[in-house]
């Protein structure tokens, strides 16, 4: 295998500081960088030798032999479970990368319910109460980015480990209930969970419709508990902690095996030799290059548009040399972009898709000229420059006004990054106004064989019956 690159920033917070130098021998699980502020420990994911330490990464040349054994995390005998999670460098593996040891450092039993904004909770009765004594762990198993399959695969294959992790989370945070939020379309995983949860009365499932987004943190809270949070509120306002299922499994490994967070599950997919089916790779060493994983999946089939790291909505373009991190969930190779021959393009930026820079990049790759930029009314910038957050994820606020702007600005095409519901609304007026609509995920959807995001054909409600 090629060199492994361990980025010093693989999480929300400040970059870690390297504690190794060029020439040092490392093993799987050797601590190589520690937090300088908000952050999480970083461990070597391979056996080998440090060849270079730069400002943003540690480069390791792997040994020929890569035994399964690893260096267990260095914690005292009487370390608490929370300390073990912290020491193992676990972060939110769903993509956000928030240090899990900090997220779980909450006593839900003593956390008061936050104040709910009546404007976005019109149907909530005045005496609304959550159906729990202390609090909830909500397990995000939505795997919402289209085309990715490694989360659901893990439920199917490692259900016990995931459930163990969930129970540890409940114990650490004093939660008395847990709910798996999973899309109803994942029938096999649901059956597996159903069986496993027979003996777990405190843990249940909430079935989600197959629309985007369902995995957004506040969408999970809303779907499971019926509570809409503002963009400033954390799930703790609903006495909850949301944990990705892969993170839960990593928590179990940290506590049961004292295993540091050094591997990642991911999906490689797209315009690859052998077809566009998903290649799910479990326990890939963090720091492995994108190119190596694409080769493992069969290699690129001819010409391609771009390589996306992460999901189609929230991912970014990347290249062969880039390493994967603790938060990488997908590597998607896309078909070529259409050529708009310099036509006028409007961008509809929202919280669900890429930011304006990413939208502009896609427009440039399509050879369009950005003449108008609108932002979905619900995309809130909590602080200047902060990533946009959607006020009511998956529930459209109306888009016709934006289309009117695009029309006025003489756009021929528009590129939208909206969720299923908002895309549907854009389609209700855009084409009639003579606007040709692209979605920022189109090239990825074509590459993975997924329907394009245009009109909404399924209900936003699904029955909670396991009727299959």
């Amino acid at each position, binding site marked *: 295998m090629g060199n492994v690159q361990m980025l010093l920033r693989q999480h929300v917070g400040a970059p870690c500081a390297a504690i190794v130098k060029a020439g040092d021998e490392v093993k799987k699980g050797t601590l190589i960088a520690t937090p300088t502020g908000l952050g999480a420990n970083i461990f070597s994911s391979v056996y080998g030798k440090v060849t270079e330490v730069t400002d943003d990464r540690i480069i390791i040349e792997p040994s020929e032999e890569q035994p399964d054994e690893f260096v267990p995390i260095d914690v005292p005998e009487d370390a608490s479970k929370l300390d073990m999670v912290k020491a193992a460098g676990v972060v939110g593996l769903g993509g956000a990368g928030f240090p899990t040891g900090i997220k779980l450092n909450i006593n839900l039993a003593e956390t008061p319910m936050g104040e709910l904004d009546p404007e976005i909770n019109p149907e909530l009765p005045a005496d609304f109460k959550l159906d729990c004594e202390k609090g909830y762990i909500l397990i995000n198993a939505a795997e919402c980015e289209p085309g990715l399959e490694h989360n659901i695969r893990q439920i199917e294959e490692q259900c016990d480990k995931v459930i163990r992790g969930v129970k540890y989370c409940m114990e650490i945070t004093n939660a008395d209930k847990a709910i798996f939020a999973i899309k109803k379309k994942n029938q096999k995983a649901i059956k597996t969970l159903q069986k496993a949860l027979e003996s777990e009365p405190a843990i249940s499932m909430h079935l989600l419709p197959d629309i985007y987004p369902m995995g957004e943190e506040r969408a999970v809270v809303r779907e499971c508990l019926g509570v809409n949070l503002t963009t400033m509120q954390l799930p703790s306002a609903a006495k909850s902690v949301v944990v990705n299922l892969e993170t839960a499994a990593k928590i179990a490994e940290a506590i049961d095996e004292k295993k540091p967070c050094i591997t990642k599950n991911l999906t490689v997919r797209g315009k690859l030799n052998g077809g566009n089916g998903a290649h799910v790779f479990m326990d890939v060493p963090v720091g492995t290059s994108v190119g190596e994983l694409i080769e493992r999946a069969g290699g690129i089939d001819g010409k391609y548009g771009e390589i996306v790291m992460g999901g189609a909505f929230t991912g970014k373009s990347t290249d062969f040399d880039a390493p994967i991190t603790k938060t990488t969930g997908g590597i998607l190779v896309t078909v070529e972009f259409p050529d708009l021959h310099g036509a006028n393009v409007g961008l509809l930026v929202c919280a669900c898709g890429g930011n304006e820079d990413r939208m502009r990049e896609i427009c440039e790759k399509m050879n369009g000229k950005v003449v108008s930029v609108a932002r979905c009314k619900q995309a809130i910038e909590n602080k200047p420059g902060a990533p946009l957050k959607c006020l009511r994820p998956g529930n*459209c606020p109306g888009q*016709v006004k934006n289309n*009117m702007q695009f029309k006025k600005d003489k756009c021929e095409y528009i590129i939208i990054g909206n969720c299923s519901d908002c895309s*549907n609304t854009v389609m*209700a007026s855009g084409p009639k106004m003579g606007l040709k609509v692209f979605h920022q995920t189109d090239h990825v959807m074509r590459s993975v064989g997924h329907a394009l995001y245009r009109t909404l054909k399924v209900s936003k409600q699904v029955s909670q019956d396991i009727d299959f």
Partner: protein
Amino acid sequence: MSITAETAKAHAHDPAVLCCRAEAGITIEPANLEDPAIFDDLVDSGLLNLDGCLTIEEVLGAKLTKTCDSLAPLTADVLDGVKAPSVSAPAVEEEVAEEAPVAAAPAAAVPVAAGGVLKIHIGEGKDIDLQIPVGALGGGAAVAEVPAAAAVAADAVAPAATVGEEKIVGTLTRKHFNITEVKRGPETKIEGTVLTIREGIEADVIADQELVKDFKLEIITPELYHTYSETVMDVQPIATKEGDSELGSGVTRVLDGVVMMLTGVDEGGVQIGEFGSSEGYLDENIMWGRPGCPDKGEIFIKGNIVIQEKTNMERRGPMAAHTAFDIITQEIREVMKKLDESLVVDTQELKSIRRPGKKKVVIVKEIMGQGAMHDNFILPVEPVGILGARANVDLGNVPVCVSPLEVLDGCIHALTCIGPASKEMSRHYWREPLVLEALHDEEVDLCGVIFVGSPQINAEKFYVSRRVGHTVEMLDADGAFVTTEGFGNNHIDFASHIEQIGMRGVPTVGMSYCAVQGALVVGNKYMQYMVDNNKSEAGIENEILGNNTLCPEDAVRALAMLKAAMAGEDVKAAEKKWNPNVKSTNVELIEGAYGTKIDLVGNEQELPMSEKRRLKYS
């Protein structure tokens, strides 16, 4: 875009349209609804059909029985639990898009039964001061519980202020002489009711100005109304000052039954003001009875001037025409000065009345000053004369303050131009409806009139509008009117005047022809109170002289709207598209509130259809 509960309330009577796809079973809430503000555009572009659409107040809380997509109008067949509509609250509505019209009139009043004795009912009123000896209430019983609704009345009762006394600051006497026949003769004279104009006076007119190449005088009696004419450049009263009287005071003598009418072309036969001119048969192109127009039955002393080729769109051409034509009027004026008092058929006394304590209002009249043929002579010695006047353009278009009586005494000699339907002829000022209404309205204190020119260049427009703002600020006015003539270019400074006044906290009613063709090209947040002077059926400038100029019915609406604005009442925002019903609703509201009948003037539909109008405007 979805709306808030607040917006939903404000638009309770507007159509309810889903902003996004909504699934069967949901309860309709504001977040499901599209903002009605954009419906006009959507309907125009065919994206929306509001037939059968329920209103927002009807659908809120109802249950959707069928999944509907974005932009679906909510109708009874897809809802359960639709509420009954309430009666729409009568608020006056702005008439011009970006601006819109009249605020609701009347503050109802409050019967106060303190000890069963005192009853106060104020049908309509603002700033009413009442002095009531406390003893009269039987030992100082509380004066009243004034319901909040009658905020105005409350103001009045609270502080015991002195009653403001009306103060007459000026008078102007108009002595009317009747003319029943106009003929030519060896000398200019008036005998009884017969006016004779000297034969050969035409040569004097031609000789007076180098640019005047030809001149013809016609006497148009009612039997000759169906006479072809070049474009009407001006309609003027024939009036003169008596003795040493200055314009706007003392005595003015005026001839009834006859007006001066100036028409003209250039040597090449091009209309002065071609591209929006009123040439044609007089009876097909004059809107009778408009303040600036002849009244039906009047005799026109009609002078047709031919000016040097290509000076028709230069300033010097029309100026020469007006100056030369005034030779005739001046000769008549000289005769009038000597007329025996016994010929006076009517004497009218106009009073400039100040009403201290009432809401102080000022009228800002924007007049054309772009140069070329757009100019006005301000403050001549004689009513609508030439001598002594300064050209607006030469004054730099800056605001000039005049008294209401100066306006009514002909202080503006108008050099009107393109767009005859919305331009104010000299006679308009002589009978200016807004000045008259405001002067006579006992609820307001008209402090004066400010004329401001409309320069050609934007930088100059803002130069003069800032002067207007400061002037109004110095006046400590409670409210202002800004009127304009024409449309388009002048709307830039019109909007800026309103902004400059509005930003100083003074509610400002704007008056302009707008409707369809004259829709505002600019706007700002202070343009909340707008009255549309349009009268034309189609909302257009149809080259009918005076058709869309400010009339008494417009003045009444503007006053009602300004009073409402000054009282802090809501004036509904204008509809995006011109809707003539807004005006009629406002008129009805005002009639209801004041218990008066407002007679509306007619429009071009009453005139015989000219060939030009048939071809160009129908």
